[in-house]
């Protein structure tokens, strides 16, 4: 059977169409912070609908973690691109034309940009107060700091860091930054909303979070969740971009006013105004004894979440709890903050904040190795967490594979044959915890089976993996198991398709579902729930019911005249436990590596006063086939091990592996991406320091 992807017949979220639908476009603020004084739609032709803040005054505030968003922002725009009105017309072309006819008057207000300004005394406040959301994505004890731009702060308090640093022979302290980045899914955000005659809201949307979207839509419109239906057709990529409410509230509100279904598909430039990756600033202080034993670590993280929190508090928390790294360190303090600015919102992005803190922490490891005169591989091996060790959160590590992954990466890049131009990184990455997954398996009259499951397909191959696992349990061929589009009316509850959790969680839920099906004969439901969570004030508890583990190695060359770097080879080693579909697992590894190369080398959102200056694929570059070095990878499997998620693990270690390869030349990059300009600065810094040392020696 031909694959619908090669024949072009797969239909995505943007291809959904229903009778009588109109197309809508969003009128967006050109200011980073402004009050909407007036909206004039008098130039609009007949056969158009204009949605203004007056039309949505009855709707409730929403937000998956902080309730800080209103449909159309209640007349106060907080970033360049904040929706202030919507126009709808019978065709997309007419809607485009109508968009230009809406006149909006603004009163510009003071705005705040960048982490430093946002946390400064007397900073402009993006929101006066921070109300924690009722959505089940706000489960982890969010700690907003009222009267500031901090909407969540998370802490780990483990041991006594002062006493730890007092034992250290060497202490290094460095500050690292990462720029904002765009997800660039090939298919833009697309949503269709309609109200049925009996007053139910139906939404077809490319989203990774159907149940969270249902919860927030029910809250916005003040209806029971059972009055809202969310259906998720396949997506042409997402990488975190299509999470939580994006277009769904706007489309539903416009459909309510228009009295007809409304379809919204974003223009490419609007993607940069919809959701991006958190810029970050991370300071690491690390203490070690002369023999390389790590004794103390403090990490301070700031994540710029833009004008609306979205899941930024969760991102800051994961950034924080990944920061200790996969090492035995007896004394660790982490302080992680999620900070508002007048930038477009930042949210989930493949790796969910962990790339940023892994970059900072793993670069610090190589700086420490350099100071100690110890091989960076040896320093890591000496301190790695092993089976039965406790992490900084107090949780005991099981099914540990850090050493195997790290050794594989080192071997693949020929670490023992000289280490000039080579770098390593090892990582641990959390999975959504607590979380719950349920799945139903139905025996159909024609002898085949149907899986009802809310895991969405965005290219990661989850549907095929879940069908494969179900078929194995049922003892049938995979073609005898169907998996219709997730639909909150019929698919049982699942937390969401994020954090590489779906294949792992569903592998367990399916066992029970198939067992129950055998008993019932017609249908079986299985459910698994992983408990856990951290005390937000001490960081003690279970950060992750299941840790993703991996490592990477990189080989680079650099032209010291121009700062241009050539990555020759990248290898990623990922702990898979058990591989379900080999080709899909390989593709997830390769795709993560390639996305990590973009993050390492050139992907950066360029802002000027809150305006994205490179919101197109000419000025914002993503990796093409000609940007690839030699790419290799391996999937570590173990007899009897559970299925581990693989969707992200190979991305976070790539930047630090490349940065550490530069460090082998004495070049110390601290900011991502590592552009030629930044590499030249780091070369100058190295040479200036060498000059100072020579002068000191001469004196």
């Amino acid at each position, binding site marked *: 059977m031909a694959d619908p992807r*090669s024949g072009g017949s797969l239909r995505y979220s943007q291809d959904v169409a229903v009778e009588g639908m109109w197309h809508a476009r969003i009128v967006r603020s050109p200011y980073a912070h402004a009050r909407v004084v007036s909206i004039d739609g008098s130039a609009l032709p007949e056969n158009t609908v204009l949605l203004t803040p007056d039309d949505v005054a009855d709707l409730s505030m929403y937000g998956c973690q902080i309730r800080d968003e209103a449909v159309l922002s209640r007349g106060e725009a907080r970033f360049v691109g904040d929706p202030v009105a919507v126009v709808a017309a019978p065709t*997309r072309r007419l809607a485009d034309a109508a968009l230009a006819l809406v006149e909006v008057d603004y009163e510009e207000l003071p705005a705040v940009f960048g982490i430093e300004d946002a946390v400064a005394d007397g900073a402009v406040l993006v929101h006066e107060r921070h109300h924690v959301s009722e959505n089940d994505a706000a489960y982890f004890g969010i700690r907003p700091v009222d009267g500031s731009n901090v909407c969540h702060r998370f802490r780990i308090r483990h041991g006594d860091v002062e006493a730890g640093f007092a034992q250290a022979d060497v202490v290094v302290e460095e500050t690292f930054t990462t720029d904002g980045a765009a997800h660039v899914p*090939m298919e833009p955000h697309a949503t269709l909303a309609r109200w049925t005659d009996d007053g139910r809201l139906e939404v077809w949307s490319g989203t990774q979070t159907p149940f969270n979207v249902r919860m927030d839509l029910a809250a916005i419109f003040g209806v029971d969740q059972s009055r809202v239906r969310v259906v998720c057709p396949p997506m042409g*990529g997402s990488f975190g971009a299509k999470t939580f409410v994006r277009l769904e509230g706007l489309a539903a509100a416009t459909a309510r006013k228009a009295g007809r279904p409304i379809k919204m598909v974003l223009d490419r430039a609007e993607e940069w105004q919809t959701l991006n990756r958190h810029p970050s600033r991370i300071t690491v202080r690390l203490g070690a004894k002369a023999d390389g034993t790590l004794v103390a670590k403090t990490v301070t993280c700031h994540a710029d979440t833009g004008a609306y929190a979205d899941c930024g508090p969760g991102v800051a928390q994961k950034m924080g709890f990944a920061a200790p790294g996969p090492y035995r360190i007896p004394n660790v303090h982490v302080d992680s903050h999620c900070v508002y600015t007048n930038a477009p919102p930042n949210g989930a992005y493949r790796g969910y904040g962990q790339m940023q803190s892994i970059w900072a922490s793993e670069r610090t490891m190589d700086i420490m190795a350099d100071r100690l005169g110890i091989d960076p591989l040896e320093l890591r091996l000496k301190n790695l967490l092993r089976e039965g060790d406790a992490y900084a959160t107090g949780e005991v590590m099981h099914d540990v594979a850090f050493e195997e992954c790290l050794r594989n990466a080192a071997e693949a890049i020929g670490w023992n044959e000289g280490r000039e131009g080579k770098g390593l990184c090892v990582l641990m990455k959390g999975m959504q915890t607590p979380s719950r997954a349920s799945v139903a398996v139905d025996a159909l009259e024609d002898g085949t089976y149907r899986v009802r499951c809310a895991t969405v397909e965005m290219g990661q191959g989850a549907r095929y993996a879940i069908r494969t696992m179900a078929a194995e349990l049922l003892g049938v061929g995979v073609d005898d198991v169907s998996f219709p589009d997730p639909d909150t009316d019929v698919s049982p509850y699942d937390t969401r398709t994020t954090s590489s959790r779906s294949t792992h969680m569903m592998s367990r839920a399916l066992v029970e579902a198939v067992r129950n099906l055998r008993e019932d004969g017609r249908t079986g439901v299985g459910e698994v729930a992983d408990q856990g969570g951290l005390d937000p004030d001490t960081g003690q508890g279970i950060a992750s019911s299941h840790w993703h583990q991996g490592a990477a190695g990189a080989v680079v060359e650099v032209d010291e005249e121009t700062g241009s770097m050539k990555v020759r080879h990248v290898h990623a080693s990922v702990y898979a436990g058990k591989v379900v579909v080999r080709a899909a697992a390989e593709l997830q590894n390769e795709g993560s*590596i390639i996305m990590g190369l973009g993050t390492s080398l050139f992907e950066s959102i360029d802002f000027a006063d809150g305006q994205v200056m490179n919101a197109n694929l000419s000025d914002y570059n993503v990796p*093409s086939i000609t940007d690839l070095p030699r790419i290799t990878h391996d999937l570590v499997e173990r007899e009897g091990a559970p299925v581990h998620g693989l969707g992200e693990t190979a991305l976070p270690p790539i930047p630090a592996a490349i940065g550490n390869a530069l460090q082998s030349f004495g070049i110390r990059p601290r900011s991502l991406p590592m552009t030629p300009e930044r590499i030249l600065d780091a070369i100058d810094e190295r040479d200036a320091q060498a000059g100072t040392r020579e002068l000191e020696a001469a004196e």
Partner: protein
Amino acid sequence: MNCTLHLNGTETALGVDGKDMLLNVLRDEVGLTSVRGTCGIGLCGTCTVIVDGQTTASCILPVGLADGKEVTTIEGVPSDDPVKVAFEKANAFQCGYCTPGMILTARAFLDENPDPTDDEIAEALAGNICRCGCYVKIADAVRLAAGMLRDEKVAA
């Protein structure tokens, strides 16, 4: 204007605004959702179709300029075409959104260069972005397809 496309071997008469982009006409008027937009400025290769033998970015081609021309979309490539088969065999896609443009580009390229080097394959596909990052297997697929096409020729 009245515009006639020789679309996948069938004469297709359309009453359209000649300034409308071919991408939108194929999607909205003809209903070919295999033709997909991403960048909107002719750079990413997703919306690629073949117009009179040339790979063309349909998102920036006014349909009036395609009047009377042969237009091939992925539907015009038979399902047993070696390039399609090779993409499936090599698992050269994830979300599949860029795949039609990728296959059409590879198809046109292999017609011109039946025995490409790895560098030539990369150069030929440099203008086709796959954000899922399937490039390693896409290159495998093009190599595989080249071999299959050469074998076909030998057999013929």
